[in-house]
């Protein structure tokens, strides 16, 4: 069982190989379509972001509401390609890790390689299981977005598969080989 401590560092990312299953531990933030759009619009206006992306890992998730006594509801990944247009801009801001599901564009894979970042896949449709690895959750930005608000999460042995490693190789492009 390979445990990875968050926040990530470029050195740690270099040790990750595509297709490998690892367990994440530490802090991350959530963000999906609407939050990405706002973050990039904020940067385009030259304003400061409400959260620091430096070394951060972002989990593409819009959790279901928590029942009383639960930390979070169901919390599995959403499909990542919808974030592709925004991702290179966030990588420039120091973002190092992303968690979602499904393919990324060649532009995103190229940006991942340039920045020495990594893209993990969590199990799509396994939100109940994912929630068991989340030990705390708190909304830290854009509360008006509801499920799409940015949450700070703390995870313990959160299972993921390395989907695009720092060389830009993708677990989904097996037949065509590891190409960008």
């Amino acid at each position, binding site marked *: 069982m390979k445990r990875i401590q968050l926040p990530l560092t470029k050195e740690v990312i270099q040790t990750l190989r595509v297709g490998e299953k690892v367990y994440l531990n530490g802090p991350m933030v959530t963000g999906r379509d609407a939050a990405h759009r706002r973050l990039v619009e904020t940067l385009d206006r030259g304003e400061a972001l409400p959260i620091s992306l430096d070394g951060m890992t972002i989990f593409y998730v819009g959790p279901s509401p928590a029942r009383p006594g*639960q930390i979070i509801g*169901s*919390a599995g990944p959403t499909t990542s390609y919808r974030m592709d247009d925004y991702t290179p801009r966030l990588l420039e801001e120091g973002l190092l890790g992303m968690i979602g599901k499904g393919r990324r564009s060649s532009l995103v894979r190229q940006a991942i390689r340039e920045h020495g970042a990594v893209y993990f896949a969590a199990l799509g*449709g*396994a939100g*109940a299981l994912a929630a068991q690895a989340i030990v705390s959750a708190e909304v830290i930005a854009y509360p008006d977005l509801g499920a799409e608000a940015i949450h700070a999460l703390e995870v313990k042995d959160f299972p993921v598969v390395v989907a695009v490693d720092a060389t830009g190789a993708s677990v989904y492009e097996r037949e065509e080989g590891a190409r960008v």
Partner: protein
Amino acid sequence: MREINVAKVREAVEAMCIEANLALTKDVQLAMKNAAETETNPLAKEVLEDLIKNERVASELKVPICQDTGMAVVFVDLGQEVALAGGSLEEAIHAGVRLGYEKGYLRKSVVKSPITRVNTKDNTPAVIHYRVVEGDQIRLRFAPKGFGSENMGRLGMLKPSDGREGVLEFVVDTVKKAGPNACPPLVIGVGVGGTMEKACLLAKEQLLRNVGEPAAEEEARELEEELMERIEALDIGPQGFGGKTTALAVHAALFPTHIAGLPVCVNINCHVARHRERVI
């Protein structure tokens, strides 16, 4: 005439919203179990076992199986000998969705305008398909639809000369393009024939069938079998990490069409293939 109060419809819809999102029906559970047993790729097998575990955890802890608890799709077969009482049927269905999503701690994923995109905050409106049928009962079928898989669906207005092979290729190509995005293993609904919207409605309705029950009609059944074989060969596998379990089932239906056309619609569902039914 048999009088039915629409409050009964509201209650049924409310209950189905919650049940569907917290547990899968037996047919889907069995299909997943069979897939995990017969899958030979080790990572794929592990993924399938995790997905089965996820569903168990969801039911035990009353946490939705998937955080995308979907847009509510309701098929209503209204018996022509039913006299509805107690107000609007349509309103009763929306109210059932509103209550179910609130009480079940389900995610509200609907925006009022597709352009300005402000959340309606109660997961309404539902998408409702009505049909008037013989009899004095109301049959309600409910399927919350997640959009990871919904976004991967496609409509093809093929030429008659494309023929059966054209249909097969279009479906396989759609699955290939969907790949990991739609959360495989998939349930694939295929509608062939009719007009544009008829093909799509048929495809959607196939997702409400029990997984693994072959079509009654021979022509459709043969399409299903051949499609399953070709899809298995794609090596997409659970979550797209490889393996033979790309689809749990293909459900196809045919309908007469125009001399000039061959519409094909593919509506994809994920492994969280939620579908419920109540008869009042």
